[in-house]
Structure formats: C-alpha cells, structure tokens
C-alpha cells in the first residue's frame, strides 16, 4: 500500500510547468554563450554572413590560431595571472588579519574598530581623490596600483568574521589560554587549520574580482605592456585597426577575408578571456555558494 499522500492533478500540472520554466531559464542563459562559442569555431565568412546561430558552421579553428600567435593576448594572460595570484595572496592575508581579531569577543574596542571598518562601506572619497592618493604614492603605472588599492573588501571581512564567530567556539580560546597559548599560537595552530573553508571562499572572491578587473587597469596603467587580459579584450573589440594589422602581421590573407577574420577574432577572444573562470567555476561553485550564504544570512 502506498501511504503517501497522492499528488493532486493540480500539483502534477505545477511540476510539469515548473520543469518547463526551469528549462527555459537554462536556455536563456545558455543561448548567448553557445552562439559565441559556435561562432568562434565556425568558418569566419559564415559568421559574417549570419549563418551561425546555435551550431558551428564549417568547423574551423583559424581564428584561434591567430589569437595564439598574437603577442598582446599572451601578455594579457600573463599579467592577469600575475595580478590575480599576487593580489589574491595579499588580499586574503589582509582580510584574515582584520577578521580574526574582530571576531574575538575579548578584544577591547572591538566595536570601535568595526565601526572604523564599516564606515568605509557606506562612504568613500570616490574616484578622483582615490586616484590622486594613488598618484601621490607614486604607484601609477606600476602593478601595485591595480593590486593594492583593492586588496581589502570590508564586506569580505564581515563574511570572514561571521565565519570565525560561528565556527570557532569561545571555549576553545579559553582552553588554549589556560594551556598557556598566546594569541599567535591560537591563531596559527587552532584557528587557521579550522578555517580552510573560509580562506578558500575569500581567495575565490578576490581571484574572480582580480581576474575580471578592467576599470582600475585602464585608470592606473598607461603602458600597453602591463595591461591585463580584460583590457586587451576591450581594445580588440573596439579597435578594428589593431585587428586588421594583427591579422596582416600573423598570416597572409586577402583583404576580403580580413573583415571576416577580424569579426570572428572577436568571438574567439571573448571565449579565451572567459575560459579560465568558466573552467574553474564548476569546482569552486560549492564554496562560492557557501560564501554568498554566510555573507547574506548572518552578515
């Protein structure tokens, strides 16, 4: 005997419609992505003549070959990696340095420090004064100008602090203190090993931000050979002239082909710029979701 309450007809219709709604949502998200990927691996002239919608037409990796031969994209990749790795290391260290003491209830003046940190979330000097400060520090056009001014997010400090508060019981500190441990011992030998999850979440948050950084690079960097990938991508999208010369320099093509290739080069560059994050994404999604939840529910 089936003693579960039978689903009503209405509920079955609901589940059907709900399934359709979800599939539609997924399609809406996927269609633009699929179109761009297919365009990047289709024959350039088919792309230009509007023959590509969802499936690739006359599969060809011609434009990928151009992209890989291009020095500026390789340089963009290298700089993005450098800025992301270095920036993430500094940012995570700073965040933990702030979040851990702020999570200790026995810290005198905790509320004052917290207010000092949180004030900057609601009020800031804005674009121009920040730019002038960076300029005064002689950081313009160095890699520090894109790493340091953004190496601490108070929002992330609050997430990490919440994690420490929730995950590390106060009794642990008392027990450690009785055993004669000082705050460093407690931090390095007890807190850090228990906090791998939040460190991973923080690293991901900062790494995605740094990898996707565009505006700060444009603002603070002047030399083309320091630009990260996002800026290179933007230049390729904007500047038909650069692409034309790029294509001419890397391969022998007639001028009629040139337009088609520069067009499909854009699709290819979009794919190349997003691949690292999208490849990483399924692996990090779990942690990311966790971080968003800690931050939102108990912030």
């Amino acid at each position, binding site marked *: 005997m089936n003693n579960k309450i039978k689903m009503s007809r209405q509920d079955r219709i609901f589940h059907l419609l709900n399934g359709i709604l*979800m599939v539609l949502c997924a399609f809406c998200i996927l269609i*633009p992505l699929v179109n761009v990927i297919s365009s990047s691996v289709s024959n350039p002239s088919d792309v230009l003549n509007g023959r590509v919608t969802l499936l690739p037409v006359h599969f060809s990796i011609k434009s990928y070959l151009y992209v890989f031969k291009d020095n500026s994209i390789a340089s963009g990749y290298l700089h993005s990696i450098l800025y992301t790795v270095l920036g993430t290391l500094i940012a995570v260290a700073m965040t933990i340095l*702030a979040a851990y003491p702020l999570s200790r209830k026995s810290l005198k003046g905790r509320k004052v420090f917290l207010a000092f940190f949180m004030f900057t979330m609601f009020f800031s*000097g804005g674009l*121009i004064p920040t730019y002038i400060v960076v300029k005064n520090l002689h950081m313009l056009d160095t890699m520090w100008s894109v790493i340091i001014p953004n*190496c601490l997010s108070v929002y992330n400090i609050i997430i990490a602090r919440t994690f420490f508060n929730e995950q590390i019981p106060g009794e642990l500190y008392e027990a450690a203190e009785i055993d004669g441990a000082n705050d460093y011992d407690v931090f390095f030998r007890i807190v850090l090993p228990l906090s791998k999850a939040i460190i991973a979440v923080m690293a991901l948050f900062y790494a995605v931000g740094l990898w996707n950084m565009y505006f700060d690079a444009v603002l603070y960097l002047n030399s083309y050979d320091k630009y990260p990938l996002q800026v290179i991508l933007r230049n390729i999208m904007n500047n038909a002239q650069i692409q034309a010369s790029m294509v001419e320099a890397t391969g022998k093509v007639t001028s009629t082909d040139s337009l088609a290739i520069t067009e499909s080069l854009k699709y290819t560059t979009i794919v190349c710029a*997003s691949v690292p994050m999208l490849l990483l994404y399924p692996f990090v999604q779990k942690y990311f979701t966790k971080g968003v939840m800690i931050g939102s529910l108990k912030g």
Partner: protein
Amino acid sequence: MQNKTKYKVNHKRKRLSHWRLYLMLLPPVIYLIIFKYWPIYGLQIAFREYTPVLGFSGSPWVGLKHFKNFFSSYQFVRLLSNTLILGTISLIASIPCPIILALSINAAKQRKLAKAVQLITYAPYFISTVILVSLVTQLLAVRGGMFNVVRGWMGMDAVNLLSDPGAFRPIYILSGIWQGTGYGAIIYLASLAGVSPDLYEAAKLDGATIMQRIRYIDLPSIMPVVVILAIMNCGSIINVGFEKVLLLQNQMNMSTSDVISTYVYRIGIGSSQFSYSTAIGLFNSIVSVILLLLVNWFSKKATETSLF
C-alpha cells in the same frame, strides 16, 4: 592579601596579552587609513581649486562654486534623470527574477534538473563586465550578430541597437538580469532551505496545493530577505553599474547612457578637472546615503524590517 595581589597581576597580564591581536589589526587599519580615509579627507578639494603642487589641504578655498556650476550646467538635468531612471528601473527589474527562479528550484520535484539549472544560471556571474559587454556587442552586431540573424529569418531589416539611445536602457537591464538572476537566487534559496519541513507537512495534510504552499509559506518566509536586499540596493540607484554603463556607452547613445559617474570619470580623468568632478562625485555619494536612509526609515515604518 598575597592572594589579592596575585589576582591583580594575573588580571593585568590577561588584558595586556591581546597586544598581538592589535598588532594583527595594524596592517588592515593602516591600509584603510591610506586608501579609504585619505581619499575621504581629500574630498575637501570639492570646495577648493585643486592644484597638485598645493595638495589636498593647501589649495585655495572656493566654497560651493563647483556645486553651483554643476547644478546650473545644461548637463545637470540630463545626467541626474538618466542616473535615476536607469538606477530605479534596473533595481525594480532585478527583484522578481531571482525570486521566481529560487521558488521554482526550491519547489522542483526533479532534483537533478533543479541542480543543473542552478549551476547554469549561476555561471554568468563569473563573466566579467568587459566580456558581458563584448558578448552583447557581438550578439547585436549588424553583420552576423544572432539578434539580427533571427530578425532576418522573420523578414525584418537589421538594426543597430547599440547606437540607438532608446535601446540602451533595455540592453543594460536585460543583460543585468541575464547575469545576475542565478547569483541573486542563491540567497533566497538559502532562506527557503531554512523553512521548517513541518510547515510543508501540515500544509500538505490540510490539502494545500503547491501553489498555495508557495503563496502562504515560501513567499512570506523570504520577504524579510527581499526587503533587506532591496534597501541595500537602493544605495545603488544613483551608483548604477559604472563600469557597464561606461563600456556600453558610445557617442550615439549618449543621450540616455550618460550618467553622473561616467561624467565624473570623463571630466575628472579625461580633462583633469579634479575639483569639479570631485564635487559631482560628492553630490552623488550624499544623494546615495540619503536614499539609503530614507528607504530604510520608510521600510522600518511599513514592514518593520530595516538594516539598522
């Protein structure tokens, strides 16, 4: 007596022993002083005529001159209305989609499908603004862009939406929904996961349909989160996604795409009018703080939910 002194010494030692924690706090505090508080101190150049040699506090005072110039410039009304319209519409438009998606995923009987949909809808969040705008540019391209290809199938002429001032807002808002819905749904899913299963059981026994359970259990349980997020985002009405606007902007769609923050950038960095653009930026921040406080106050009165 001896005992008492011993206790005192111990007590003192315990209090002092946290110097290490203060030392840890030192780098972040110094960082904030330099990169957050120094620029706030620098805001005074909005009331001065900034020259690099004289610095923040040495440049001559000019009072409210820059503010007056901005309020009386022919740009002012256009910039303010563009900013408010774009900010308000995108705030309102971005609220329902994540809620619907979260409710749908939460109610789904097909768990695998729901997981897959969540994974897919969340992915665009990882795409940078530059890539998003490049994607939009290519999809809307006059030659070969998917939008115009599909229009072609239906016998319509190709159009260039990117240079159409009327299309700027829909493009901005729809691309925002495309990118943000899956990410936004996570917070609602988290609060839906916190709903007690007993409630569902009771409702089922009473013969409630799924729609009724969503209406009377799910929706009320996420309403506080919806309100909190909406309040928090009110600050962003006037700080509309600066980077995205800047990237989608071109000479042709300027009449709807020029907002205060892009103007600050253009005037400040582009033509080095540091004081004037700082004044505009300050005006922007003040309006945003006032908006936040107002909406927070209103929400406290109306729904008893508030940030502070």
